[in-house]
């Protein structure tokens, strides 16, 4: 008999379907685990989530704050910046100024690399030579001049400069020492150093590294056996990962993310006032006659920016408006003025200067500072309110921004950029940003084309001045002159914010947005 319709009959086909569904369910069930938190903490290990890719463990070209924490765990310098912004000896046992242009250094006895070879005077000389050969090096720009090395013995040598460099001990904290035979002018892909950790696995492309405790470390062995470094560019992913215990420390987080993490069990937030300044810096390579070549136009444009609104509503109180050309937390920094918001005055001044139909191109690299995209989009609207158009061009990390900054990629007007205070001294940042000379500009090694010879001269005098009072006086005058040249559309000083799992102890976050990885310990939870 033929049966019509499709009643609920248990036929062969339904049985097969049910079987297939059950099989698929069983096969896919393990995938459900992907929905939950993954990668619970491994005992004895620490996992760091960086917001920028650690391309190499060498700081010649890859110098951002959180990277230094990792780089210094593998390679060490003669000194390091201590919590009080003073120089603390590391590979150097003694680092003393013996004359205005001369420092006597003695290498620490027993200091050796992870392959067992000792740290030698030749390694220091080679390291300085290699840093000097890097084109556009951030580190070299910090030095008024690189010192020469004169060996005195197996462990003793002199560092000599043509002019006095009173903060040479602080500056040398940025020169990481590598065995002379393994050193190159290029970024070093290997991880042979004298630090408390050695690299057991690394991938510069993905920015992921595994560090193991250095069994031949010359100092006190670090408490944590394994440190994993991961590049997690998406802030939301980093926040979710630290919540789930997949990451132990995340750095440079936005106030909004900090707000999401505050009060969560197992997560703690660390904040300290920073020494980094974030700027919307004008392009100083504009030809004469261009509106931006006129300091009065730059000042008028800065009146369009509503700093308090950006601080309170976008940066949510996690930063303060710059009141000088470098952060006031730096030794030697002075208050030079404030950014005021007066859109009507801005328009009036632009009209008086004959500036109409101005359109600015604003460029920046993602992750340059927390909430960077929001700040930029807010600035575009603020400029639009005074009749100035703005076009945004955002570069992804690893993109072309270095070529653009050097004026080789394309034309731009304002750069969103952060400048760290790696030595804790104002003079270092001032020289790095405003000490540009025509010679340096020929190789595009100045800071966005800022070349004002009078200011560069003042800074050079201050950098070489051994008398502290006189140095402060010259430095103050230079900072006032810089402020009067209106280099920035707006600038702010962010607090250093870091989130850690509470099992991570001993993490002493410094104003330079770095910490000593060798002092960090991990408490195993029951």
């Amino acid at each position, binding site marked *: 008999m033929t049966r*019509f*319709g*499709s009643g609920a009959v248990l036929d062969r086909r339904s049985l097969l379907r049910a079987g297939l569904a059950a099989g698929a369910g069983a096969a896919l069930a393990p995938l459900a685990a992907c929905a939950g938190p993954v990668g619970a903490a491994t005992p004895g290990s620490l996992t760091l989530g960086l917001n920028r890719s650690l391309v190499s463990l060498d700081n010649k070209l890859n110098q951002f704050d959180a990277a230094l924490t990792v780089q210094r765990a593998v390679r060490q310098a003669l000194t390091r910046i201590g919590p009080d912004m003073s120089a603390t000896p590391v590979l150097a046992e003694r680092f003393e100024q013996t004359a205005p242009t001369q420092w006597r250094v003695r290498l620490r006895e027993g200091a050796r690399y992870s392959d067992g070879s000792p740290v030698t005077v030749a390694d220091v000389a080679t390291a300085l030579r290699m840093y000097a050969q890097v084109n556009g090096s951030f580190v070299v720009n910090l030095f008024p001049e690189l010192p020469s090395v004169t060996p005195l013995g197996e462990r003793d040598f002199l560092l000599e400069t043509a002019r006095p460099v009173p903060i040479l001990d602080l500056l040398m904290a940025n020169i990481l020492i590598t065995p002379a035979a393994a050193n190159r002018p290029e970024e070093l892909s290997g991880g042979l150093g004298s630090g408390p950790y050695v690299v057991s696995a690394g991938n510069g492309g993905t920015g992921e590294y595994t560090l193991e405790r250095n069994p031949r470390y010359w100092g006190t062995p670090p408490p944590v056996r394994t440190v994993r470094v991961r590049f997690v560019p*998406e*802030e*939301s992913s980093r*926040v*979710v990962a630290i919540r789930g215990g997949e990451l132990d420390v995340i750095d440079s987080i*936005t106030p*909004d*993310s900090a*707000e*999401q993490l505050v009060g969560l069990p197992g997560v703690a937030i660390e904040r300290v006032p920073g020494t980094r300044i974030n700027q919307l810096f004008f392009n100083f390579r504009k030809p004469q006659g261009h509106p931006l070549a006129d300091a009065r136009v730059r000042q008028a444009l800065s009146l369009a920016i*509503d700093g308090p*609104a*950006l601080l*309170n*509503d*976008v940066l949510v109180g996690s930063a303060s408006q710059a009141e000088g050309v470098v952060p006031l937390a730096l030794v030697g920094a002075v208050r030079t003025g404030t950014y005021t918001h007066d859109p009507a005055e801005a328009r009036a001044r632009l009209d008086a200067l004959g500036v109409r139909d101005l359109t600015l191109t604003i460029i920046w690299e*993602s992750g340059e500072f927390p909430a960077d*995209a*929001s700040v*930029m*989009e*807010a600035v*575009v*609207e603020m400029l639009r309110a005074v009749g100035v158009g703005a*076009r*945004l*061009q*955002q570069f*992804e990390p690893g993109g072309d921004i270095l070529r653009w900054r050097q004026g080789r990629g394309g034309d731009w007007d304002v750069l969103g950029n952060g400048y760290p205070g790696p030595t804790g001294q104002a003079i270092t940042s001032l020289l790095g940003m405003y000490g540009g000379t025509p010679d340096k500009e020929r190789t595009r090694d100045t800071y966005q084309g800022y070349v004002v010879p009078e200011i560069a001269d003042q800074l050079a005098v201050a950098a070489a001045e051994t008398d502290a009072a006189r140095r402060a006086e010259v430095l103050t005058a230079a900072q006032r002159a810089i402020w009067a040249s209106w280099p920035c559309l707006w600038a702010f000083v962010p607090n250093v914010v870091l989130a850690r799992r509470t099992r991570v102890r001993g993490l002493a976050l410094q104003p330079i947005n770095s910490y000593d990885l060798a002092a960090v310990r991990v408490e195993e939870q029951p």
Partner: protein
Amino acid sequence: MSVPVSSSPLPPSPGDSSPARPSAVTPRVLARSRASRQRRATRVKLWLGAGCTLVVVVPILLAGLLPLPGPNEQDLAQRRLPPLSGGHLFGTDQLGRDLLSRVLHGGQVSLAIGVLAVVVSGVIGVLAGAAAGYFGGGVDAVVCRLLEAQLSLPLLMMLLLVVALFGPSVPVITLVIAVAQWPELARLTRSLVLVEREKPYIAAARVLGLRRGVILARHVLPNVARPASLVVLLLVAQAVLLESALSYLGAGPQRPFATWGRIISDGQDYITTSWWLITLPGLVIVLLVVGVNLLGDALREATRRGRKADA
């Protein structure tokens, strides 16, 4: 037992006064038959698809006329307001911008890119596929190898590479998506033309002395255009998704242009405190893509049944 007649009874023969012939095929049975269920499902798909699509597309097209703030108009004091508060139906984003306005204006960009890309890919795909199917030989081999070569490349990686090389502007993104989508249409057109070229009317046209190009343009293409155009509709949804994916990955048009992918990408930083920043734009994308797919599916099924009925 009286059995109702079927829904399409045979006409009674002349002089036959007896009641309709009894049949076991009742209207109820017919309604539960596979064909009827498919017809009903097609109708439901058609209405549901049209509804979902119109709910998204109509407001997008009218975005400029609706009483909404501009997509880039900021009010920093009103940031991250939840939906239905402060006069904002979808709430506001991290800069106090009206989220609905950004979603609708972002939709204009996404839809414009999607439609333009599909038009370009449609032209490329139909022409290449038709030429391959009709002329065969060397032309077919070249087109097929090109198709296979492109299909073997990872699509999103290829798109990201091209956008990275030429910059993330609307024309570049449109062209890139168009080039990415032509193989699907070319393959379909080729198979349709292969069937069509063997039909008697083509042979007749050849006998009449028409040139091959003329036969293809005047007789073959009009006959394959309809089924091919339905696939184009499905490609629109795919193009919108591709554009959103590119924007999400940072390869979309530059800021402050609102695009769906970027709205979601920006909103994910606030996922635990402001759910609406990614949920609502995501829902709009889902509605559009599901709607367009249902609509395309329904139209394709309706066309197929229509052709069967004609046959």
